[in-house]
């Protein structure tokens, strides 16, 4: 019985394979090639920026939330791991000195303009590099 079923299946398979496929019009390939010739060969696909922002927003929010808790909390377990006290007493003075020196540098308008142009150019370059990445199929 099982052999008979296999024989029937094979028979039907062979018959189906012998039936011809449907064919499009004779000039089908020519029409496609004509359409291709009139268009540029490669269109670079760009990723939209929005999905990337959406995907990174939760992580950024989580990091900011943790930093806020870390910097403002008076919980005792923070004391033993160089938490708030360490940041306020050891790190912040250095940051303050850095900001003060930056202020002095920015006092000159030529430095300010130069930095402004440099940072803006760098950011534009990075954004362009990021947006130029190809999409995956």
């Amino acid at each position, binding site marked *: 019985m099982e052999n*008979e079923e296999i024989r029937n*299946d094979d028979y*039907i398979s062979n018959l189906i394979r012998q039936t011809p*496929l449907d064919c499009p019009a004779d000039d089908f390939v020519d*029409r*496609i090639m004509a359409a291709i010739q009139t268009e540029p*060969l490669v*269109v670079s696909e760009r990723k939209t920026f929005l999905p990337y922002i959406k995907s990174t927003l939760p992580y950024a929010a989580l990091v900011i939330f943790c930093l806020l808790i870390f910097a403002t909390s008076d919980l005792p377990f923070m004391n033993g791991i160089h938490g708030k006290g360490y940041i306020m007493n050891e790190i912040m003075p250095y940051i303050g000195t850095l900001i003060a020196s930056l202020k002095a540098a920015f006092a000159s308008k030529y430095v300010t303009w130069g930095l402004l142009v440099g940072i803006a150019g760098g950011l534009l370059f990075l954004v362009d590099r990021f947006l130029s990445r190809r999409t995956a199929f």
Partner: protein
Amino acid sequence: MKYHDDNYYIDRVLSGDVGAYAQLVAKHKNLVFSIALKILNNREDAEEIAQDCFLKVFHALKTFERKSKFSTWLYRIVYNAAISRTRKKKPDLVPMDNYVINNHTEEEVSEGIYDIDPDIQKAMIEKAMQKLTDDENLLITLFYKGENSIEDISVITGLTMSNVKVRLHRIRKKLHEELSVEMNRALA
């Protein structure tokens, strides 16, 4: 005509030989058109969808990462495009299992059918295939004529592999029943 492997043409197109794409189109045009036609049931619409898909694939060729077969990727694009067109034009599809079971046994069919002239056999199978639903015709086209694996068909249609297997089994059974009807007519 004997064709090369798809990757051969893809490499040539990507290296600037646009004409090589014509070979790729010629190689796949019949199955692509058949898939669209089985879903849309209209030659003009099927040809338009097939043409659009070949153009779309050409422009996206650079982004094809070759993780799957080119044909699987192409057929999936055509399948999705045709289904989208169908939803816009024809919302009511024929249910998969809506067919009549007649009273002929498989033994009766297998005993008599081999005695019939091969040309009549072909005509009979074509007639039997016309009685299949669009979904069923698409599945057997992909499986038998396109020689796609169950896994490939699963990727193309979005059905699970077990679902594809069950459906193919049902289609074979249904074809056998339809053949028995046609055989009786032929022998009468």
